[in-house]
């Protein structure tokens, strides 16, 4: 998930993310995405959560992130 956060910081500048009670909540340009896991224990554990490329592709599409920018972080996305 740390790599996903780095991608969001670069490709979705100005986004907000917070660990909710049940889900990780990412908001950017009026779109809110809750499809990414918050990790087994939430809190600081979220950075260590393992995220598959299918989950990243979905987040990129639904948040309207430039796929080329995302591919600079995940080459075979």
């Amino acid at each position, binding site marked *: 998930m740390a790599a996903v956060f780095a991608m969001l910081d670069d490709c979705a500048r100005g986004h907000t993310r917070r660990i909710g009670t049940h889900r990780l909540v990412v908001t950017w340009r009026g779109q809110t995405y809750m499809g990414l896991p918050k990790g087994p224990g939430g809190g600081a554990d979220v950075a260590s959560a393992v995220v598959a490329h299918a989950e990243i592709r*979905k987040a990129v599409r639904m948040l309207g992130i430039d796929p080329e920018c995302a591919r600079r972080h995940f080459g075979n996305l």
Partner: protein
Amino acid sequence: MQAFPLIFRFSVVVVNERFRAHVRGTGHALAAYEDGQWWCSGVEPGGLTEPGTSPVDAYLGFRKTLGEIFEQIADDSHTVEDYARRVGQFFLHADSHDRQRWQDALESLHRRESSLTEDVAKLPRQAAATRPQVEIEGANAFSEQPETLSLADPEPLSKAA
């Protein structure tokens, strides 16, 4: 790539200290084999995808996450009206990419090009024209009817007698 167009119906009750709500509806999802495993990917609502060992197993994970999202939206909502608006916004945010894949998978089924997995073969059939929709009923129950503790008043009883 093996893929199946799914239609699911769901019903969720959410209760917190501000309101209670019953969310029910019909959605579209795509079960697809990619990256070495099955994924159940939301079409409408589009905002989630979950893996599994089979199409139905992936759907069970998808359904669990959908419930968590409804709970998260409830936590972020002040009133049942606010909740209904947010749920509607989430639910109607379709994934146009997966919408096309869902249609392609439907065409493939129609042409009998797909071989069904054992679990998918057991699923009941639902008309493909069934449209996604969501409805929310509820009330700001706890503000309308606060909990109270009272001492029984004998006066009405004596009046009644």
